[in-house]
């Protein structure tokens, strides 16, 4: 089943009097349980694409469908609800909130959850166990390594059991060992049925996806 569909989607940004077109007439379909790698130079529009998929931003023209539901004209509140429940996001630069401990960081997407306090706690511990950090629940981000922080961010992205995980350069600032751990986590999620979309500069990592899309000057080229 098609999970994500873009039809003639373009995105422009206005900076002063200049209009900068970042994505041009994108026609793209990502199916459920795909592992898609998106590559391209800095400023090519990779992150913009992820933001539109996540409902953080809207296309300037064209359409965006998620499971055949048109999200193009949804308001930001509706997009925020969609993002909270359907999408898990992992950022490269900002894995965690410094003033919250690991447990509280994972809890953030549950800010309006109907689950009881006990169930929330149980669920958070399960997620931490899944990423191998249940013993670090009370630790603060400054006490964690880069790889551990990114694993906590992965647990946070999974806490609402989303269909799709978006990862923007998830291993960009990690050592090789940590990079492999994160990638193994993401491929494991793919195995259990999640759709994974990863933006990366790393050519070796990009080769490990089922499908690779390269963006150049806002235009999509399927590599594989």
């Amino acid at each position, binding site marked *: 089943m098609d999970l994500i569909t873009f039809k003639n989607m373009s995105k422009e940004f206005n900076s002063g009097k200049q209009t900068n077109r970042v994505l041009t007439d994108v026609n793209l379909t990502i199916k459920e349980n795909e592992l898609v790698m998106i590559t391209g130079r800095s400023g090519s529009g990779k992150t913009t694409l992820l933001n539109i998929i996540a409902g953080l*931003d809207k296309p300037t023209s064209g359409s965006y469908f998620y499971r055949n539901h048109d999200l193009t004209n949804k308001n930001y509140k509706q997009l925020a609800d969609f993002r909270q429940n359907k999408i898990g996001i992992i950022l490269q630069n*900002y894995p965690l909130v410094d003033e919250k401990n690991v447990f509280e960081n994972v809890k953030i997407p549950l800010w309006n959850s109907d689950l009881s306090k006990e169930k929330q706690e149980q669920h958070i511990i399960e997620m931490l166990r899944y990423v191998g950090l249940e013993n670090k629940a009370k630790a603060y981000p400054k006490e964690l390594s880069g790889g551990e922080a990114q694993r906590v961010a992965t647990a946070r992205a999974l806490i609402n059991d989303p269909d799709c995980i978006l990862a923007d350069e998830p291993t960009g600032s990690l050592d090789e060992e940590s990079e492999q751990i994160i990638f193994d986590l993401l491929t494991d999620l793919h195995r259990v049925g999640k759709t994974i979309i990863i933006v990366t500069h790393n050519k070796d990592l990009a080769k490990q996806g089922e499908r690779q899309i390269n963006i150049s000057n806002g235009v999509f080229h399927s590599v594989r």
Partner: protein
Amino acid sequence: MLLLKECWESLVSKKTIAFLVILELIVLSFFMTILFLNYQKSETHAKSFMRPFENQNVYQIDDELRDEKEDAFLSSPSNVDKLRVLYKKFDSAKKFQFINVTQQPVGILNFNGPQSLLAGFEENSIIEPYESETDHQMYETIKAVQMNKQAMKLLDIKLSEGELLPDKAFDYKENKDIPVLLGSSYQGLYNIGDKITVEYLFKKLDVRVIGFLEKNTYTTIGQDSQVYLDRYMVLPMMHFDQIERKDKEFYDFQWKVLLHSINGFIVTPKDSLAITKEVNQLGKEANFTDFAILGANTTGIVVLSSMMEQNQQILILLTVTLSLFSLVTIYFVLRTKLKLNMKKYAIYLISGLTMKHIFAFIFSEVLLLSLTSFGLTALSVSFILGALDPFYYIGGIVFSLVFSLIITAPIYFRFRKMPIQMLLKGRE
């Protein structure tokens, strides 16, 4: 709940910034409070004390009897009677109001009060107890003012207990108790209905307490712009039916009272020329013209009025300057904080919160800081001065809301315009 938790976490995580902002806002709240108190005080003045003088001119009557001229004049009862007639004419004039508040200490028999009530206490020159020439008993000298009927009405004197001096109190009657008012410091020392023996202008008089003034009641006396009456006895400025020479003591008492009485103030909307004509006419009718009509420029009332206006202007200027300074500095402090919080907001956005939530966090935090600062200031001021006007507390809360909006509105518009990827990448 989420909002409060978020505000609290944000404040605690950047304690130094929160402390600096609170400190600055406390200083601002403090100035606002002073401005409010000053405004309230000036309004009270305007409503009670100054109101009678609004759009009015004040002129002073000054008799020109000096030295030998005075002695010669006062030796004749018919001359003193001229003063009596003139005062009666002033007192009953329809075209102006004649007010007189004179400060003249009185001797008091069997006084057991504190030294602060004695004449000269504030100047550190208390008058020693003296033996009266009339009854050879020991008297202490207390602070006292004499007020005429018009002054009592015009100055809107307020009492905490008892009643104001009735009209008949201003007509002297031999062997009748004279009603008096006492300042608030006399409370507990005397009660309403108490009879006190005093010596006023060397005349032994029996006075009866009929009321106590409200605390902080004040008046102007001559050139003194503000004389608080808390430690004073207020006697009526008495008027006589006739002048009697047969009793020298009483004759002397009469002319002294009358000399005090005619040296009062004329309150009128009329200009100098018109009032001079009017007053000179009354002088001619009373057959006494040895007095001058002085302009109003140097009277305490005018000085007080202009001082109050100046003080308020300085305070407004200071408060406005400080408010602008606070607005600008707090805005930049918060912008810096916003940059530090960018990472957190990005995570909130990807976790299903919206820009509106984030703006609500920022606004609530500024509001919490403003309310905390105002609360601390209001608490301290209320602790020292007692509960203030409810308008002060409501005004403080409204001001905190408006202040928070003014501070956060530019941040909101800047934030709203910011492309989402800039925020997620931590750039502004």
